[in-house]
């Protein structure tokens, strides 16, 4: 467990709702849920979630910190925005799910090998390099994330797909050696660095 996690437990003691309000994107909305269940019924991958959104909101209010931050349910959010469109109370559910996922990751509580958690990090790292996403490298890193052997297997399984894409000129092997980039890369990178600093700073302050 990370220091940050211990610090947060210490700080908020038995009030997980307040912790969420202070540290999770759009977390101040959690208290406004009226438990109608519409979001849970609207979630496309809902049947795979251990705790659908409505339940997560209730668990936060019931102080079930370990269960909420330890579940990988919110990582299964596809950002379809169905819940937002339908919630009678206007909760920004999608963003809360993302926020909870990120928070759990920051505290080091996200399950190891959670595929979407890994993918989103790979995606972010990829775009940070050049300011634009390099799809080929993105795909390859995803395949090889679990080591070389598994990577080859993954790549073989999707070989046909890759060939199809190349034929349609929608995948370019040359990308591997460079690819698209923003011109003011240093400006771009220091901007993001600064934003990260501000956000980290806020979290430390909270602690």
């Amino acid at each position, binding site marked *: 467990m990370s220091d940050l996690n211990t610090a947060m437990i210490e700080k908020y003691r038995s*009030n997980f*709702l*307040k912790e969420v309000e202070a540290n999770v994107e759009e977390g101040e909305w959690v*208290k*406004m849920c009226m438990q109608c269940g519409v979001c849970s019924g609207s979630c496309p991958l809902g049947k795979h979630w251990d705790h659908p959104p409505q339940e997560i909101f*209730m668990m936060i*209010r019931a102080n*079930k910190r370990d269960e909420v931050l330890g579940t990988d349910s919110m990582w299964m959010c596809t950002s379809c925005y169905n819940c937002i469109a339908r919630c009678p109370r206007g909760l920004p559910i999608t963003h809360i799910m993302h926020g909870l996922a990120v928070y759990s990751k920051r505290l080091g509580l996200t399950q190891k090998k959670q595929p979407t958690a890994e993918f989103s990090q790979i995606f972010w790292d990829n775009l940070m390099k050049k300011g634009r996403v390099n799809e080929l490298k993105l795909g390859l890193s995803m395949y090889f994330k679990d080591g070389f052997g598994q990577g080859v297997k993954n790549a073989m399984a999707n070989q046909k797909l890759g060939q199809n894409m190349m034929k349609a000129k929608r995948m370019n092997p040359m990308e591997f050696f460079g690819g698209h980039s923003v011109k003011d890369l240093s400006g771009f990178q220091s901007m993001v660095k600064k934003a990260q600093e501000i956000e980290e700073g806020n979290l430390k302050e909270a602690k």
Partner: protein
Amino acid sequence: MADEKKFAGYVCTGCGLGERLDAGQLETTATRDGKMQSCKQHEMLCSAEGVQLIKDDIANESVTHVMIAACSKRAKVEAFNFPEVAMTRANLREGVIWVRPESDENQETTQEMADDYIRMACAELKSMSQPSASGEQTLNKNILVVGGGITGMTAAIEAAAAGYPVHLVEKSGKLGGALGSYYKVIPTRSPYDAPAENPVPGMIEAIEADDRITVHLNSTLAKTEGAPGRFNVEVATESGSSETLSIGAIVQASGWKPYDASQLPEFAHDKSADVVTNHELEALAVAANGGPIKRPSDGKEIKSVCFIQNAGQCSDKEGHLSYFSGVTDLVSIKQAMYFKELNGDCDTTILFDNLRTPGAGGEDFYRAGQQAMVTFSKGIASEVMPGDSLTVKFEDKILNEQTEMVCDLVVLATGMEPNSGPDPYAQLMVDEAEDEEEKAKAQAILENAPPSILNLQYRQGTDLPHLKNGFNDSHFICFPYETRRTGIYAAGPVRRPMDAQQARDDATGAALKAIQAAENAGLGRAAHPRSGDLSFPSFRKEGCTQCKRCTVECPFGAINEDEEGYPMYNESRCRRCGTCMGACPVRVISFENYSVETVNQQIKNVEIPEEWDEKPRILVLACENDAYPALDQAAQAGVEINPWARVIPVRCLGSVSLSWVTDALNNGYDGIVMMGCRRDDDYQCHFVRGSAMAAERMSKVGDTLDTLNLEPERVILHEVAITDVERAPQLINDMAETVEKIGLSPFKF
């Protein structure tokens, strides 16, 4: 003019009547069969010109009785308003041409229908006279308000503001009632985001400053006699003195009492001082005096509180209230916000199953509670375990688990019970109980009857009748403040559970109704629903057998008894429903313009074709409040009605005399359909019990049919709502089918 009667008929040929019917023939029917001394046609009788024609005849030709053959009596009432004469309407538009198809083969029966309606109207007119006020009483503007809580105070302030002197009688030593001692109230104004200041102190000030309002503290009603416009009320004080007031109308605002939480042993109310009801919490909040609310047991500042919703209410468990008290969820939100306001970082949880926040600002207030960090948990509490801290066991309904929480204070959201007087019909309920269980229940109510509040000197008992759960019967579907005692209006939580704002709205309505009742009584006019009616029942003493049916069956307790045992009518207590008239076995009760005779004459003057004509006749007695309008609407929509039917509107099914049924059958009618309003606990009868009384009476019609050797299917009674636009005509057509099946009546001549 003198007493000379002059009958004039008018036939309208507008609205397609002229095209569909033979107007000349109608005129002949009116003069030859109907014995009208004159009959005129007009192409649009409701036009200024048509109306003038009638007016001129009344003025110049001394016409005293007017028969209008045109549209339904419910149409063009403003145009055809001739208060100085007796009037009937033959319904040829909604009653005939709109319900019959336009074709040659139907022409004959359609014309027959129209001719019959003219004969009926003329016959009715012959036995009518023009009603006039009795002059029994003069205007008395004094309004009596019983109960000095927020409801009663509002009624007093509103009536006084309208210029009426008010006597406000309060049992305790101060005004304000239950709410008076509350910390704050549910907000009544946008943005509905925080508990609002208690309005009671301001109202008390206003009342004290108002010289139209006389306050009687520590006082009760020792005796209330008379009728609207002339109540004599004896107000007794605790100290034994008393004074008699002369009153025009009364508002009963006796309020509510909190549910007794000692009936909930599982929540340890009697075991721990830290388990309080919502009502009791208010005192703790006031005692805090702006500081944090403290625990009753040890004075410790409360750091965590749990509200248990629906404690002992909304439940069919023994000793619980079967109903929801409407406001208790809003009350808990309000009280939870006390803790957010006074106790800083206090954990505040509301355990609810169904959270109901009615009213304009209810939902906003709920959100405000959430915004203030009140935790709303969907869970059902099963037990509170006392101890240094309290443990609340509950089932979490979202996470589906049995769990518990620990807190400093538990608040039980218990319900409201009405503070009403004894139900005058409690004994009747025991007598009429259908099974043992029902009887035991009724017996318990009778034995636990509360002390009287009004002490009415009415033959039918001392107080307002109840509907359910001890709440006063008030026509809750359509006319919320109308009780079953004319001129006495129930307002506030004595008629249903409600919050302060609803009680204030209620009180305002009731005050205006009381004013109206006093004014109407002064003019000898009926109150709702026949408002303005001057007709009034009288009885022929020589014929009366003192059977007391009328005094018992009057839904409004209007009839007392004199020393000799004869019925004693009270004009201003009467609603003109005619239930007494329908009840009287010797038919001695009548109104000037509505009597056993006026209807009987209509029944008799329908031409009954000979048996071999194969033209049956079906008599329809339709309540003019719901069934008749439903038929009118059906006609508008072009729904067809069988041509054998003849419809007679009646004031209330309760006014139907059994003799109409027997006479009709003797005259050769083949079927009788009666239509009145719904009559159970969710009744819609405008006269509350009229429809039920009729059903009771008609249950005996089987014997009559038996003696006449007729099939029971020939007479049927239906509950019809004003919305039954398709169904009402269908019921008539069904009877036509029945007659077709069982054959014509053998009583034709």
